[in-house]
């Protein structure tokens, strides 16, 4: 395979053909069946050399140039095939690739990429949200093991997790960033309890994880003891930017669906409805143009400009706004959840309105993001009453 000499368009053609030929069809309704179906797809993808666009080849990845990563994400989204499960690929994998030992890379990366093991995150705690360095889940060294005690929360897909990547305290209580260690914990180890957390939607998208004298081999520590904090924000090049166009494409589709729904319900003659839909139309286009600018900056200058820092705020504001607008415009019918015939489109807009409350909380609240933009992009001074970074 002469992938290195392939043009972007040739790659697109080849990947599109693969996705079309092997598309797994519709997802099974049953949860266990859906999990098995997803795993089968991820294994096929890996075995065919189409997994891990930004990963090194030696760990089963494709090591694509940035422009081909963009193509990959476009085609993947377009094909509507199952996505990798858990949050490992985007978050812990780059950390392992950069800071893991050779043995760890060999042991962890391929099964993660192939979908054999689902990795989930153990960062937030009930007492440590935005102030993550205040976390208290402790790891006490005993010979070749750590003994872990404490509680994590807001773990996405936690109940499916096989492996937990976690931040734990190995230093003193007051040590903050300088006493945090990065551990990889077997979700099936004695003393680990994962409980689904019922969120305000009524669903269970997140879990709480309890550690009660859980023994973790020292060999499962990434980096050195007390040196886990700087590893947290590792990313592989600009892999996240490569997928930025897809979010815009996804919301483009959702907006089109909302317009069609409101057309069917004869709401498009209302000038207020039209004005808000035009506002959303402009936002969804701005989202795409912002993503395109970031991609272009990376390709021409090697680094994204300030646009990349505001993209997430634009996206989260949009997803909250569109769902709430849909609920408001549907009127009382927008308040009804559940299966047909009474709920509009199975209550998707209502669910979206509720679900997207999390958009400005998870993965860094909108307030913390604004602080970061102000300090790191605009150069405003830090709050002197805040603890050091």
């Amino acid at each position, binding site marked *: 395979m002469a992938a290195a000499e392939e043009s972007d368009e040739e790659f697109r053609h080849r990947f599109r053909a693969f996705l079309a030929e092997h598309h797994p069809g519709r997802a099974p309704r049953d949860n266990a069946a859906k999990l098995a179906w997803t795993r089968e797809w991820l294994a096929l993808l890996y075995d065919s050399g189409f997994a891990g666009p930004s990963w090194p080849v030696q760990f089963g990845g494709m090591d694509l140039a940035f422009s081909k990563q963009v193509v990959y994400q476009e085609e993947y989204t377009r094909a509507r095939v199952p996505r990798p499960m858990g949050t490992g690929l985007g978050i812990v994998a780059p950390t392992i690739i950069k800071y893991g030992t050779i043995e760890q890379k060999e042991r962890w990366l391929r099964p993660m990429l192939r979908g054999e093991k689902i990795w989930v995150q153990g960062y937030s705690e009930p007492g440590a949200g935005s102030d993550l360095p205040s976390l208290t889940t402790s790891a006490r060294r005993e010979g070749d093991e750590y003994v872990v005690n404490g509680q994590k929360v807001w773990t996405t897909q936690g109940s499916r997790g096989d492996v937990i990547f976690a931040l734990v305290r190995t230093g003193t209580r007051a040590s903050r960033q300088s006493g945090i260690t990065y551990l990889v914990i077997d979700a099936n180890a004695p003393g680990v309890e994962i409980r689904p957390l019922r969120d305000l939607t009524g669903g269970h998208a997140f879990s709480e994880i309890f550690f009660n004298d859980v023994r973790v081999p020292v060999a499962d520590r990434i980096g050195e003891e007390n040196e886990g904090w700087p590893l947290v924000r590792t990313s592989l090049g600009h892999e996240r930017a490569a997928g930025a166009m897809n979010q815009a494409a996804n919301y483009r589709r959702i907006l089109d669906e909302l317009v069609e729904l409101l057309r069917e319900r004869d709401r498009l003659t209302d000038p207020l409805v039209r004005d808000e839909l035009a506002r959303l139309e402009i936002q969804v286009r701005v989202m795409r143009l*912002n993503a395109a600018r970031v991609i272009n900056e990376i390709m021409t200058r090697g680094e994204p400009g300030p646009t990349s820092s505001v993209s997430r705020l634009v996206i989260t504001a949009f997803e909250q706004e569109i769902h709430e607008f849909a609920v408001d415009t549907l009127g009382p019918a927008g308040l009804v959840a559940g299966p047909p015939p009474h709920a509009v489109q199975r209550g998707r807009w209502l669910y979206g309105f509720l679900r997207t409350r999390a958009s400005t909380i998870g993965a860094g609240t909108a307030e913390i993001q*604004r602080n970061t933009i102000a300090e790191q992009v605009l150069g405003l001074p830090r709050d002197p009453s805040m603890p050091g970074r």
Partner: protein
Amino acid sequence: MSVSSVEEQEELRQLVRGFMEDKSTSADVRRAIESGAPYDAALWTTMADQLGLPGIAIPEEFGGAGFGAVELGIVLEELGRALYVGPYFATVVLAGQLLTEVDDPGAQKSWLPGIADGSLTATVAVDEESGSQDLSAVGTTARRADDGWLLDGVKSYVIDGADAGLLLVVARAEGELGIFAVQDSAAGMVRERLDSVDLTRNLARIEFSATPAVRVGAEAAALLGRHRDLVVTALAAEQVGGAARALEMAVDYAKIREQFGRPIGSFQAIKHKCADMLLRVESGRSAAYYAASVVGAGGTEAEIAASMAKAYCSEAYAFVAKENIQIHGGIGFTWEHDAHLFLKRAKGSEVLFGSPAEHRARVAALVGI
């Protein structure tokens, strides 16, 4: 049309920025506002002679550089940053682009070289006292005379209308819309400068009574629609430049102004405002650059992109200009501080050439909502 590379565009930007930082400082802007003269004639001549800026988007055969909306947008963005006071927008963006687009080689030959070399200032008069953006509201009429046409009616909100050397007036003639050129010396014309909010951009009301005019081109409705897209695209670039500068002012001030023993920029309330301002500046930049890159090709996508840029950048600039005043606190409310000049430019450009709501209505119709 000439095409510039990314490097050449960056050079152009730096050239214009450096020139404006030197020649259109805050003191220069204030002198131009308070002088009573419509603009600094020496600066205008230098912009033309040394930099060739008026001719940037005029075809080479008429003495211009032959570039398009992207390069014109770069110039406008920099002029917007500097709050430049002068005939550039009316002469180059309004009249220059209308004459470049019109199918009338005679008119082009008569006036485009003068615009390109800076010897002629000009403007376009479309709006009337209602301020309606709907061309069907045009009530000014043109009737045939022995050696040309005579105009009757009232135009208003005409940028540089009291001073421009050439007026291109939209009027109704024999049941269709036409463009009519009026010289500044024409008889039967009363021009009155309006006391409008934006001190850096002169607006005028003009009365025509049997004013002699020359017809330019033929039926003009489609041309005027297309021209409006070119104008609002250039205006969006100017808005982005002004908004970016207002954000810089706010950030610079928040770094040095101390209250409670610390810079106000260390407070989250100020940080969050600044982050929200950056979001709008950068998103506006995306919209404006995109519009500039596609408007030349025409068609539905150009129309959507132009209206989208005008709607978004108008609101972005107004937002940033208002927050800039808020962050400056009391000093931002004084006449001496420049913050109000940006607010007034923002509000003026938000309302002219169609409000954000009007442009959103157009976007909705164009995308099939």
